[in-house]
């Protein structure tokens, strides 16, 4: 038996400090994770995180699943931005198979990923506001997250755990309604984000609460293998979209916002600016898609790579009318599609940082080994260091500003 973390009573009688259980289910933790804090008054002396409450053994499950059935597992990593995880997984397989996608498909993917990033950052930033006591912004921007989810719903049929896209492209083409919804979102979102900014960014109370809370230096952040907005808030301009562009991100013009101190306020501001960049990327992508469609009208119907036929579930009407489509459909659903042997690492810039897929294939129909590099899991270990010596209330906003998602933490 291992030692129990909670101290016994004789010991606690002598103690001058208090042991406090923050979590596993606490409204301020926004997920199932426990922190055993040793506090002196309001000051945190020591923190011991316990994780694994929703560990679902995805890496083991993946070893028995055909490739297309692993996509729903990736949904449940960072469930605030599942489309990015889905796309990252498809791209990993495409890398393994050596597939090249048409530009239109890549731009459509960029739109989906950037929408997901906005949704992810909206949740994170509005929750920071909630934890500092400002509930208004949260209820206000959630309308726009809802609009994003409606777009996802129009494209793939589900909202939160999307299972969007397939190896080689998408399961179906974007409908006109999807584009209409997207345009409606682009019309309304900037105004709402501007209002949210006006509410929070230079709000004296908010600034006083956030500046200097839960800081981490660039050096420590790098040592802790931070990635994503949390690393950029510390002042390191590392972004996978720029460093190793995937899905044609090199065609877009956008900035990487960076902070200086790596505190809660910097993380908030970096995410805030990233939403503007995402908004601009989506607009650019729409323009590019329209340009492609103007020049090559037949491209309108392209939503997956033709070379991916063997790996891409054919549309249902083809399955009922065409022999090849029926064969492919049957083979895929029965999981009889083998992938070539190989070893791939592919990374995408997720909502929280570098989401990596390390895949060893032995040539079978399932991975031999699949490892998810989950940014949350990696940077959450720095949490005790970030909150030690600070106030308990700072620890709470530091947690929400790190945007720790329990699904990604525990896999």
């Amino acid at each position, binding site marked *: *038996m*291992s030692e129990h973390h909670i101290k016994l009573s004789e010991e606690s009688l002598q103690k001058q400090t208090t042991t406090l259980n923050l979590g596993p289910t606490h409204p301020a933790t926004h997920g199932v994770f426990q922190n055993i804090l040793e506090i002196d008054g309001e000051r945190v002396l020591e923190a011991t995180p316990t*994780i*694994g409450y929703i*560990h679902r*053994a995805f*890496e*083991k*499950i993946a*070893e*028995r699943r055909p490739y297309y059935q692993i996509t729903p597992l990736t949904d449940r990593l960072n469930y605030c931005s599942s489309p990015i995880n889905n796309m990252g997984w498809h791209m990993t397989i495409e*890398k*393994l198979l050596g597939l090249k996608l048409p530009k239109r498909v890549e731009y459509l993917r960029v739109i989906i990923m950037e929408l997901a990033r906005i949704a992810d950052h909206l949740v994170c930033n509005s929750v920071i506001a909630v934890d500092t006591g400002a509930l208004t912004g949260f209820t206000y921007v959630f309308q726009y997250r809802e609009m994003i989810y409606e777009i996802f719903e129009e494209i793939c049929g589900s909202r939160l755990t999307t299972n969007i896209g397939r190896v080689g492209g998408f399961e179906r083409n974007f409908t006109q309604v999807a584009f209409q919804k997207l345009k409606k979102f682009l019309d309304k979102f900037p105004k709402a984000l501007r209002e949210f900014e006006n509410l929070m960014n230079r709000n004296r109370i908010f600034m006083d609460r956030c500046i200097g809370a839960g800081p981490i230096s660039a050096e*420590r952040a*790098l*040592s*802790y*293998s*931070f990635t994503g907005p949390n690393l950029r808030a510390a002042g*390191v301009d*590392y972004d996978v979209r720029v*460093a*190793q562009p995937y899905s044609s991100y090199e065609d877009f013009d956008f900035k990487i916002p960076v902070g200086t101190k790596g505190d809660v306020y910097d993380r908030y501001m970096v995410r805030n600016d990233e939403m503007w960049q995402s908004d601009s990327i989506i607009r650019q992508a729409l323009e590019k898609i329209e340009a492609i469609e103007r020049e090559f009208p037949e491209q309108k119907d392209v939503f997956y790579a033709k070379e991916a036929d063997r790996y891409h579930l054919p549309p249902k009407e083809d399955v009922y009318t065409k022999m090849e489509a029926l064969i492919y459909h049957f083979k895929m659903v029965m999981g009889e599609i083998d992938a070539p042997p*190989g*070893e*791939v*690492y592919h*990374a995408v810039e997720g909502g929280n940082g*570098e989401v*990596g897929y*390390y895949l*060893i294939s032995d040539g079978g129909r399932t991975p*031999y*080994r699949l*490892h998810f*590099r989950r940014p949350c*899991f*990696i*940077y*959450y*270990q*720095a949490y005790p260091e970030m909150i030690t010596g600070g106030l308990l209330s700072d620890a709470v906003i530091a947690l929400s500003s790190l945007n720790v998602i329990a699904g990604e933490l*525990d*896999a």
Partner: protein
Amino acid sequence: MALTKEIIKERLTEKFGEQLTEWAEPYGMLTFTAPAEMNLKVMQFLYDDETLRFRFLTDLTGAHFPDRKGEELSVIYHLHSLENNIRLRMKVYTPIEKPDVFTATQLFAGANWMERETYDFFGVNFVGHPNLIRILNVDEMDYFPMRKEYPMEDPTRIDKDDEMFGRGGTVV
């Protein structure tokens, strides 16, 4: 001058000679295998060397290869030289009876939990790790679940008598 895979390979071979083996470039990532007892030396060299500067540990994980007798467990490091924007993959293999590998926690603070995870699932013993205990699984667990001798349940098995879930049993 931009750092290339050739330069990395050259520098490493210059320093460690024949000890680094299995050089490959699957899907464009430089990959090699180091002897298990050398992992830290190689990483320290990659970290300190002024031209290489691999100072970011992207990922650390394990894998189990029951067919590689005498070196069944593998630990895989993905290192990133952020300034040169180049990645590499280093592997070490260790016998399953005595899976000792030196810890990287002195070099990278982030290796702490990644090594705990690898220990938790594969049972790799990271020598010198400050707190090598299970992280995602329950503390009472007495096996390492990601090893290949624990296969996932076969969905076609019929030995379970479970009418509710359609495995075996008798339909009345």
